[in-house]
């Protein structure tokens, strides 16, 4: 093939940004401060962005997510489950499922990761002021709820009654043990734990989340329900909430999709015209009903 007349190769090297703020594909390098093995399948990482100025300037709202990467392995999306009111570190809790999450489970303090955050929308925490909040979390679904719950506890006066129903298959599958102990002990919130299969020495509830919820029968008056968990749990919990006369706008949840860019460009995470990475992951049930049936 004939040679082309080309400008000298290497003569037009452009730098495409220095970090996430000017290049949304470029992670900020962060260091793992500590890890907590919550359950055999769930591990929590607490990371701090190495660039001190960037870490100090980091702002996010409860519900926003980050793309956490292990260089050479890949990226995966996780909610920032520490609240914006506690900025010593950014916390992500990882359920082991595939290549990237298995590798993230192998991290130790001092290891380096990449963080592209904050991405996505957030819980409508401002609209929720003055209301009674009902949190319903299943398994790893407790993670997105944690950020909002802690934020509310750190701004306790702004919110009404706070009720938490947290369920898992077995006690060993419950994450955030220390938090849970704290929440059980607090007088400014009402915490119920339930497991599907209860051992004999289990002092809390037994039974599926939707059943326990109906039993607790929270009032729908001036309330918002925030749910997160496996799709099947969401489906039946929404049914329970409808039985309790919660309106569509009073039910908030999060959606999950395989994601890559996280910024609404790669075209992968759409449901109809909505992209889970920019129009979500937080959606109200009213919004979900407008979406094509592709959940």
């Amino acid at each position, binding site marked *: *093939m*004939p*040679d*082309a*007349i*080309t*400008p000298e*190769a*290497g*003569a*037009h*090297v*452009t*730098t*495409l*940004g*220095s970090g996430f703020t*000017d*290049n*949304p*594909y*470029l*992670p900020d*390098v962060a260091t793992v401060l500590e890890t907590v093995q919550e359950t055999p399948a769930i591990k929590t990482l607490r990371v701090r962005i190495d660039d001190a100025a960037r870490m100090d300037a980091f702002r996010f709202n409860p519900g926003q997510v980050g793309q956490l*990467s*292990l*260089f*050479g*392995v*890949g*990226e*995966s999306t996780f909610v920032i489950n520490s609240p914006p009111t506690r900025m010593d570190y950014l916390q992500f809790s990882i359920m082991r*499922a595939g*290549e*990237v999450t298995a590798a993230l489970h192998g991290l130790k303090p*001092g*290891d*380096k990761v*990449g963080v592209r955050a904050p991405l996505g929308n957030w819980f409508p925490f401002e609209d929720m002021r003055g209301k009674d909040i009902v949190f319903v979390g299943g398994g790893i679904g407790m993670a997105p709820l944690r950020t909002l719950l802690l934020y509310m506890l750190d701004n306790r006066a702004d919110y009404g009654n706070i009720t938490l129903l947290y369920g898992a298959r077995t006690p060993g599958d419950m994450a955030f043990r220390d938090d849970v102990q704290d929440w059980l002990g607090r007088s400014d919130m009402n915490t119920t734990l339930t497991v599907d299969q209860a051992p004999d020495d289990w002092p809390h509830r037994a039974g599926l989340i939707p059943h326990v919820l109906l039993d607790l029968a929270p009032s729908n008056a001036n309330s918002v329900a925030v749910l997160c968990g496996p799709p099947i749990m969401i489906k039946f919990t929404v049914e329970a909430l409808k039985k309790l006369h919660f309106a569509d706008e009073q039910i908030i949840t999060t959606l*999950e*999709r*395989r994601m*890559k*860019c996280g*910024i*609404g*460009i*790669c*075209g*992968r*995470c*759409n*449901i*109809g*015209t909505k992209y889970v990475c*920019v129009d979500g992951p937080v959606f109200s049930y009213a919004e979900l009903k407008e979406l*094509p*049936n*592709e*959940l």
Partner: protein
Amino acid sequence: MSFARYIARGELARALDLMARGRVAYAPRREADAVVFRPRAEGEEPLLARATVPPKGIIFPQSERLFAFIREKDPNDPGHTTVRLDATADIPPALIFGGRPCDARGFHIFDRVYLNGPHRDPYYAARRDATVVVTLACAKPCSTCFCHWTGCGPADTTGSDILMTPVEGGFVAQAVTPRGQEVLEGASLPEAGADRVMAAEAVHSATLSALEAQNPAPDLSTTPRRLRERFDDSGFWRAMSDKCLACGACTYLCPTCYCFNITDENDGGDGMRGRRLRSWDNCMSSLFTREASGHNPRMGKALRLRNRVGHKFSYYPDLHEGIVSCNGCGRCITGCPVSVDIREMVVRATEPSEETPNA
């Protein structure tokens, strides 16, 4: 488009040399049994045929490096490693000659998502900025062209810097953008003159008429809504996708398809160096939406085809002022091994049906 120059047929190669000065010029070239865009050598007479593969790969490469990562051990503390990221790329000024309007409009489809969305894509922006697009208007349609259905057309200037039209003896070259004008000025070409410009416009109308005669454009104004209504019509989508092989030929031949994947690779086995890549991906593959748990919201090819047609003719228009994410180039039809025909799918989806009778 008042700035117009004339290029005599015999002067084309020289004019291209001048327009492409300081730039890597790409033009269609026959390579074995296909026509693809390749770097053009000085003096090379370009092939004026429409390429088998559109030039989107010049501004949106099939694969590109987003950044390299380099781990370095701290010499004073061997247990401590730092990571440095290198997000540089060599992006020379470029010029694309010989695409058609159905190729160039694709860049506008990209622009709306990559440049004007909630986040800006710096890689795409750099290449788009660096590339002059010189488009050839079509003098005759081919049997699978349907650009006049989708808001494109045989002389559409969307996405181009310069539009060249074949007239008697040569070409009229019209500037579409200020940059296009600059490039034409730099090529020291004679003015086209009013007569030639009129001749060019006559070519545009004639081709459009030929397209209309061959294949009248249906009314697709209700298509976005109809596709939403047809979403749950599983019999329809099963019938449309029965013969589909769920490969990626349609996607990779399409000038407007813009989906991509991001993957990490290592240089060597020790994990100390590597790169993060961006590469073309296609929604027809079952891997596209498959989650780590194994759950796949679009498990079957019918659901994926529904999403593809939905995205092009419903979701994108709803998000982008009615603009259809299809240029009507017809490559998905001719390139499909089993002749899946998007025209048929769109027309049938828009018609009233038993399932959804209200058109």
